[in-house]
């Protein structure tokens, strides 16, 4: 089915990737998963997904944030909505930049704090994709 929306999942935990593939797949999405940003970017160009779900606690917090920022700044296949899943609350400081500051900067579309409920995640995914269509 060529109308299926494509979602790219980047999370350094392969099991989370697997579960996301299953859950999102069950809901009719085409899912590509990567456990690091290098492969993630390759998939981004190759598959031109409609949405990115990104865990910002990659190997380092910076890796995830820098990647999100990079994507937001570019055009073409890069201009897709981003849903960030993080273990840290959006208000937490203590790193060089707070997540909030970074969210303003990268304009991540939706920020969700772990443990994310799968139902909420699906609802947010649907919201982001339908908004894009409109």
């Amino acid at each position, binding site marked *: 089915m060529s109308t299926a929306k494509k979602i790219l999942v980047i*999370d*350094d*935990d392969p*099991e*989370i990737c*697997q*579960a*996301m593939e*299953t*859950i999102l797949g*069950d809901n009719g999405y085409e899912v590509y998963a990567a456990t*690091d940003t*290098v*492969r993630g970017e390759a998939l981004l160009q190759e598959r031109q997904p409609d949405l990115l779900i990104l*865990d910002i*606690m*990659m*190997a*380092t917090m*910076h890796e995830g944030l820098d990647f999100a920022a990079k994507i937001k700044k570019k055009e073409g296949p890069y201009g897709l909505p981003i849903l960030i*899943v993080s*273990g*840290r609350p959006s208000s*937490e400081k*203590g790193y060089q930049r707070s997540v909030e500051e970074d969210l303003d900067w990268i304009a991540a579309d939706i920020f969700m*704090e*772990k*443990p*994310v*409920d*799968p*139902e909420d995640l699906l609802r947010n995914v649907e919201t982001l994709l339908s908004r894009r269509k409109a």
Partner: protein
Amino acid sequence: MRRILVVDDEESTRELLALSLQSDGYEVLCAEDGYSAMEICANHPPQIVLTDIKMPGMDGIELLRRIKHLNADIEVIMITGHGQMELAIQALQLEASDFINKPISDNALSVALRRAEQKIWMREKLREYTENLECMLKQATDEIRKRYDFEHNLIQTSMDGIIVNDRDGNIILFSEGASRIYGYSREEAVCGLKVTSLYPEGEARRVKKLIYSQEYGGPGYLVNYETTARTKDGRLVPILLSAALLYEDGEEVGTVGYFKDITEVKELQARLLEQTRLAAMGEAMAEVAHGVKNILYGMKLGAYMVEKALSQGDRGRLEKGWDMVRKNMDRIARLSLEMLDYARGKSRRREAIAINDVINDVYQELSKRAQEEGVRLELETVCDLPYLFGDVEAFHSCVLNLMTNALEAFGEESVEKRVTLRTFVQENRWICVEVEDTGRGIPPEVQDKIFHPLFTTKGARGTGLGLAIAQKIVQELGGVMDFHTTPGRGTTFRLRFPLVTSQ
């Protein structure tokens, strides 16, 4: 100009003498008897008196006596007649400066005058010298007093307590600063207080021993030694003590000590430590929460899959979901066990550890996994490695942990996958264990965090406690752990344990 008083009852003699003396340049006063002479001596004192010895009323001898009584500095020359030698001698005994016989010859007069002049001059000089000496003595005394006051002030106003004791331990100097610390007044201290009573039991002896020892600044000195003072009312106060032996002509005569009350410093240190501890605890708790949230996320996803599978009757999906739930339960279990292990601290056994045996065990344990993951395991050990003393199990888990990290250090991009486990002796001082991998390396921004408890780059796969525990174990074994890493090229962790020379 010198003033001369001429005393004679004969007017002619007076006038003759006066004329002669005036022409010699003297100011001349005359008196016809002893009484008016005394009056002049009291009102216009002359330097020299020239008096006849034989006079009506008060004679020359009596006049001499009175003049000398009034002012011993006035020189009196007696004029004697023929056959008055006895009177002349008596006059000399009464400190007359000279006598001349009648009739007065100019020559005899001038000799007598010169002699009197000389005596006056000498007396003046002597007075001058004496005055100078007195002045100089006063200056020197003032100087000494000033310096003493200055040094006394230095000692007394010093914020530190300064205490000097003699060889027998008697206190001989006790500054205001010392009073502030100890509560004894200066008088109490210097009247029979022994220096030993300024310390808790036995501490004075230890301090004395340390002064003679090499430690804290070398023999004869004690520099910044932290000890405890016992005050008059029995309180114990933390102090910083510096002291030195005092010598006089090469012989030891006592000790000077400088005491600084460090109660506030200690309190600040304790408070700072407590704050650091609380901050670290807060940070650790945030990290724990973060780890738990990650695991919960996995569980939620698994549970969701289980629920969906149940409603759809999909057995395959059910197993997948359940597997995920199980795995995350295991993670929580491992996290809590490792947290306990980290918190447990030192309760380990102490035994001889054959390092190479442990290395070989770890090698065997991991060889299958390495093979599956396409990692070449290499072993480079030296024989006859000295024993290490400590807990074998802890050492084993430490090496296992480093090896597991090494196996997980490779990415897709790693061209060569090799892990080397190495033992050797370095510089005849250290027993070394090295774990080298050719993996990704450690990014610069996390290099200083890798030993922090709960820091991990492995996402939900790691608890973030592995390296923290490994480092703790190495420290308990008396060793140090360090690493060097080149991003993209690999990392080497090195454990070094001091080589104990054979007992």
